[in-house]
């Protein structure tokens, strides 16, 4: 159980971290890229038709190959996702049907895959700048940027506690004892995360925190890659409608 939590904390620690992939998709303007990927996400979650979902999966593979996203990075992030979603959907196997649960898992997996590829390719500051460009309320962008900063902290703290615990444990204990210790560990974890969050907030203040201004930076606009990307999205939409 503890080993599983440890692996999970390591997994989520890097979940949103951009990989500095030298992808041809970086030539696409982030503003257009975000819209395109959102269209793909919408297509994924707006159907229960197996044909349409497999068509989207086919396009996902094309996108992965074209974007040169390392398969290892991709699977490391989304590999466990179907299992996780299916576990949540398990009651639906009895309430509706196994087909419904599987298709639901499938479409969420596709949607998450598109978001994952986008976050692997595009630096986070560019995503924030794009959201600002689209006039998304600043409080929402601020929350998004805070979440990004703190998500690493939360899982990093958990990982550090678990490693420290592991290296000072010498014998196997009964389950009752382990659960009791686990409860104490959870309490310590919350306090430590809270304190570290507080320190980070003080650091923000000491550096002149003022509702977090971010500078807008986009790649130089290059027509051809943008055109190819838009055609790809358009063909996907047409294929989705026809099927």
């Amino acid at each position, binding site marked *: 159980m503890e080993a599983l939590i440890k692996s999970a904390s390591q997994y989520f620690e890097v979940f949103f971290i951009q990989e500095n992939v030298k992808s041809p998709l970086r030539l696409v303007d982030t503003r257009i890229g975000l819209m395109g990927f959102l269209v793909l996400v919408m297509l994924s979650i707006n159907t229960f038709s197996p044909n349409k979902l497999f068509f989207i999966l086919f396009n996902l593979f094309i996108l992965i190959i074209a974007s040169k996203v390392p398969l290892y990075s991709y699977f490391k992030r989304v590999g466990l996702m179907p299992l996780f979603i299916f576990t949540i959907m398990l009651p639906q196997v009895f309430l509706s049907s196994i087909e419904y649960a599987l298709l639901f898992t499938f479409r969420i997996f596709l949607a998450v895959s598109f978001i994952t590829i986008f976050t692997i390719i595009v*630096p986070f500051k560019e995503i924030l700048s794009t959201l600002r460009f689209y006039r998304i309320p600043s409080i929402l962008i601020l929350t998004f940027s805070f979440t990004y900063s703190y998500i690493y902290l939360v899982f990093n703290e958990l990982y550090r506690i678990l490693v420290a615990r592991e290296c000072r444990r010498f014998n196997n204990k009964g389950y009752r004892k382990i659960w009791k210790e686990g409860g104490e560990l959870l309490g310590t974890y919350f306090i430590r995360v809270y304190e570290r969050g507080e320190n980070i907030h003080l*650091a923000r203040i*000491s550096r*002149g*925190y*003022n509702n977090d201004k971010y*500078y807008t930076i986009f790649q130089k606009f290059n027509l051809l890659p943008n055109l190819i990307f838009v055609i790809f999205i358009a063909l996907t939409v047409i294929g989705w409608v026809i099927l």
Partner: protein
Amino acid sequence: MGDTLNIIEASNIKYVYPDKTLGVKNFSLDIQEFERLVLLGSNGSGKSTLLKIFAGLVKPTSGNIKIFEKRVNRDNYPYFRKNIGFLFQNSDDFLFNPTVEDELLYTPLQLGFSTEEAKNLILENSNYFGIKKLYEKPPFRLSGGEKKRVALACVLQLNPRLLILDEPTSNIDGKTRKKIIDFLKEYEGTMIISTHEIDFVKKISNKVVLLSPEKEILKIGGIELLEDKNYLEDAEIL
């Protein structure tokens, strides 16, 4: 008050944490402009708490503090932020942006500089600390020494009049340590540093405040204070 500006005027300061742990007590001290003061004390003697109070980040539970002869309140807040550079003990707490470049640009942008101005501003320190090649990296992926150099470069963006450094040489390699010491020797503003490393104090300071484990001032003096073994033993440094 003489001709020299009092950078810090602290009188009878006491700080108690919300869980009733005592942070510091009976602390009174004036720090004048261009002084290079070192707070020397064992772990848990209240150094970090004092530095946060000096930076105007934490309000004392009782007692009075003036920074740049101004009271600590919201009106003076932007002035403090522009003129005080504060380096945290733990670089992981200090660096919270997605990339190193964002870290460096953070303060200038928060204080209203344009992107162009901010980028020019960060260039000099980036070159000095050799961190330009790290611009695109996430800060938490850096080594301890790299993190410290980035954090110090961030603090120095606006050439602050008061530099507050909380254990700047802890957990770093020799090369980074030398770089920091060289920089601090050349720095011309007022400096308050906390540490428990005696050889480091000798290299950069001209005034020493020894703190006792009871979180009070034990002795104030010049660096000759470091030769007095009795005081250092009482402060639990030796």
